């Protein structure tokens, strides 16, 4: 798999990251370098090896179903550029 100029443009848009047009070729080169390292990893024989999710040996911590948080509207909206009566206010995004 190889990343070209257009793919860079697309994934930048999907990630909402602005990339100037004259930076795209350079980024494509960097991404292709990363992908080729991964391709190199793929040459390792992993047949009969279980996928590893964590090196700590911990299992997923599980919570009890109790209400222990919330009721902090002021903190939640404190950093919002615009608010009204407890709501976040954003440019209209209606379908």
């Amino acid at each position, binding site marked *: 798999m190889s990343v070209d100029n257009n793919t860079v443009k697309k994934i930048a848009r999907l990630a909402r990251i602005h990339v100037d047009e004259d930076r795209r070729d350079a980024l494509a080169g960097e991404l292709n370098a990363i992908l080729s390292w991964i391709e190199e990893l793929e040459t390792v024989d992993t047949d009969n090896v279980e996928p590893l999710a964590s090196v700590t040996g911990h299992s997923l*911590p599980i919570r009890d179903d109790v209400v222990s948080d919330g009721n902090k509207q002021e903190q939640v909206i404190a950093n919002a550029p615009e608010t009204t009566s407890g709501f*976040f206010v954003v440019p209209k995004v209606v379908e």
Partner: protein
Amino acid sequence: MSNLVQGQTGEWEVVIGMEVHAQVTSHSKLFSGSSTAFGAGPNQNVSLVDAAMPGMLPVINGACVRQAIKTGLGLKAEINLTSVFDRKNYFYADLPQGYQISQFKHPIVGEGVLTIELSDGSSHAIGIERLHLEQDAGKSLHDQHPSKSYIDLNRSGVALMEIVSKPDLRSAEQAGAYIKKLRSILRYLGTCDGNMEEGSLRADVNVSVRKPGAPLGTRTETKNLNSVRFIMQTIDAEVERQIEVIEDGGEIFQETRLFDTSTGMTRAMRSKEDAHDYRYFPDPDLLPLSVTQDYVDEIAAELPELPDDIRMRMVDEYGLSSYDAGVLTEERETALFYETASAGRDRKIVANWMSVELFGALNKAGKILAESPVSPAALGELVDLITQGTISGRIAKDVFAEMFETGEAAASIIESKGLKQVSDTGAIEALIDKVIAENQDKVDEYRGGKDKLFGFFVGQTMKLSGGQANPGMVNQMLKDKLK
């Protein structure tokens, strides 16, 4: 019954699959300790995790996992002892993380089955593809300001079960039956309250059409339908639209559509070319979710009797028709009411009184069963009075109406209104003699061979008694007298 739809160029087969989002019944959210209660002020039930503040980490709610497994077992589905949470990436104002934590490749529940019954008595097994746990998004209000949207994150992070059917549904009626049955099972299990108005149960409907036997057509997806009626209307509208487009030489595009409740039509969402590029990957904040078979077995042992099982029992043991049993088991409360009212009595008569008189009266009064002025015990008592011959079925209807009106017991209404059935031979004989004396011409005709007139005599005698004469006795005695 054929489900094919007639078009200009022949018949079309409709293929429907549904994705239902069911809010898990729990006190707190899937990955945070804030409340799931409906109706709080804006952004009150929001923690810094739900608002996706930097550095916050999700910790899973064990009760939501249990509910998902319970639902899976209720759908006779395979439970996956290991499942994985993935990030589904997209940007929207009410999704503060920039991704939804969902399960993509390894859902907690695999294939299952749900059986639907239709009004024509047929039943169909609808395949369940999978059930996975995921977070709900927040809520956007678009109608509060001309150029702004208001965002409330109270729902953000609430646990949802997405239940995906196989494309096994063939008509709007089947889709309606499917969602009703699913809602019924969820309510019996107590894993989702099924309240569609509050958004606890919402459906996305995938529809395509094809010539019978042809490969699947291109499907469209209509999102976020929150009533059975809208689901059925959407399907009808979409089927009609697709057939028209294809028959006019056009093409169906795989797209997301919206149902407009004011026009009853669907329309394409403004096209978002990247909308389906979710770039799923395993959430690095969450280890795989593992449960033991013992844990699953423990939940299985606690499952309540489900509507299909109760229905079968009502048909086999109580002798009810499959249809009546279906009506009585759709809601758990209804089934419990019926079991209480009919215990130790004629099950069929009670079923009949419930589905005809009680439901009729409730419907007319705009009440639900929980608000019924007639208790299960009171209805049972009324049925006892009929079967013991204290009142006739005809009078019982009046008594029932009075019970529904006043909440009084049947026995006291009968007592105070003097409605007891007349089973006294002398009294009935007097009535019959009077009817015969007043209709001598008809008596002659009857004796001359006009048998049909018998019903007339019964009717007249009953009428004269104010409906209180024992109909069986009237019948027998009339036969003797008219010989």
